[in-house]
């Protein structure tokens, strides 16, 4: 697999291999000079058609710490949404010389098309509502390292709460966590739950309070305010009251439970309390691990030329 487009491409041995390499990267990142020459002379181009400073910076940092050269292209989706322009951009950059593209776009499926327009490796940094595989990897990595479960999530009880319908993070995490053996509970209001997601290891509910005492990992998704404006959700504070993480709910968690969020947060909506006051919060660890995991992915793709174990 010379691309990372979707968590569906990741089998258990590949995930283990990536996590093992990520441990190396974590060690490197802890040094005073966090840099190794592993990808010297390689070029990683981040092509972001949808705004995201944090993910782009995370990938660029990962590339630079491996001594790769970086190129950065960002365009707002509205001006560059015609197929020809995405293709033009990719082909032009490829001609300059790119070893790996990191692509984010508001439309699901764009990274798949990108693989047809270049010989470089392609990493999906988020496409529409579809997939965000490096986020799922860093989330799984964070959980395994925090809970000390090795390279597996067997039996780990995870609750994913929020707008599952519109969340590529949710789709990726549900797929990857379930494959790694986790017991996943999806908590969302009915209209934010896509059909057909329940399955082996996956249950669905809209009663958050019932789930909290038992859960080892509470994963909160952001809910965009625009959903409420579009008439998709009831008005007022009803969403926060039913699904938001406030102090009362934080107290219902067990002492060892960890709380995660992919960022950025919508304070007051899904995060009613300040996560800094949550001892179980691992949100900053996610960010740190994001760099390590992305370094591992880039190293495997550009070093080995393939992601698989």
């Amino acid at each position: 697999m010379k691309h990372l487009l979707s968590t569906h491409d990741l089998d258990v041995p590949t995930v283990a291999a990536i996590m093992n390499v990520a441990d190396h990267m974590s060690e490197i990142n802890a040094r005073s000079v966090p840099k190794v020459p592993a990808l010297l002379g390689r070029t990683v181009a981040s092509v972001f058609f949808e705004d995201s400073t944090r993910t782009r910076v995370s990938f660029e940092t990962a590339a630079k710490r491996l001594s790769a050269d970086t190129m950065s292209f960002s365009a707002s989706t509205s001006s560059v949404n015609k197929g020809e322009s995405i293709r033009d951009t990719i082909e032009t950059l490829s001609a300059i010389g790119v070893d790996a593209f990191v692509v984010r776009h508001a439309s699901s499926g764009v990274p798949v098309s990108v693989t047809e327009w270049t010989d470089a490796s392609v990493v999906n940094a988020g496409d529409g509502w579809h997939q965000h595989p490096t986020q799922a990897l860093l989330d799984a990595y964070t959980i395994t390292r925090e809970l000390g479960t090795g390279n597996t999530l067997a039996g780990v009880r995870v609750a994913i709460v929020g707008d599952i319908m519109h969340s590529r993070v949710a789709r990726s995490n549900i797929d990857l966590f379930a494959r790694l053996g986790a017991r996943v509970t999806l908590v969302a209001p009915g209209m934010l739950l896509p059909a057909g997601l329940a399955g082996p290891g996956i249950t669905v509910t809209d009663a958050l309070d019932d789930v909290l005492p038992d859960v080892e990992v509470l994963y909160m998704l952001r809910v965009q305010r625009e959903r409420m404006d579009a008439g998709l959700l009831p008005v007022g504070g009803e969403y926060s009251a039913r699904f938001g993480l406030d102090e009362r709910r934080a107290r219902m968690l067990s002492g060892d439970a960890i709380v995660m969020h992919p960022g950025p947060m919508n304070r007051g909506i899904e995060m009613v309390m300040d996560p800094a006051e949550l001892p179980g919060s691992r949100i900053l660890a996610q960010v740190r691990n994001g760099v390590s995991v992305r370094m591992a992915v880039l190293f495997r793709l550009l070093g080995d030329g393939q992601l698989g174990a």
Partner: protein
Amino acid sequence: MPAGSSFVRIRLTRPPMTAAEVLTRDQVDRAIARIAHEIAEKHPETSSLVVIGMQSGGVWIAERLAGHLARIAEAPLTGSIDVSMYRDDISMRPVTPVAPSRIPVDLAGRTVVLVDDVLYTGRTVRAALAALNDHGRPGAVRLAVMVDRGHRELPIRPDFVGKNIPTHLDDEVSVGPEGVIVARPGADV
């Protein structure tokens, strides 16, 4: 296959090989002990040494050396180093990092004894020197190897050697606590 041995190279399809034991278990033990004495002789302040084993073949030897030094003088600091990120052939062949490096101290000004099982082209040692530098600029680096099998491609030479064993390019050398074996392609004559 003797347990604990490390192979220099893994081939998927193997021609018939003839194996010869060139060092027995006892000879390996004595070589390590001798190297420890040589180190102590050259560097009497053994407690300030940092003995670092290269992943993965040099780690057990480094531990043994450290054990000997602790008995004949004072225990040095120990660690291990994985040089996967520093290899010069990363895109040429699969590189699987083994375990994250464990460097116990800032190496600035320190004398490092770098330990590996087999010295061959010298490229792995070159990578290790680059890797060590990222943990501080050592005052000096000494190289200790169990086997020097020749065929250097870079100007690298060991300071302490268990045994010099001339080999052919397609020989395979495996080093373990039970002994050293050289396997050569070709049926048993």
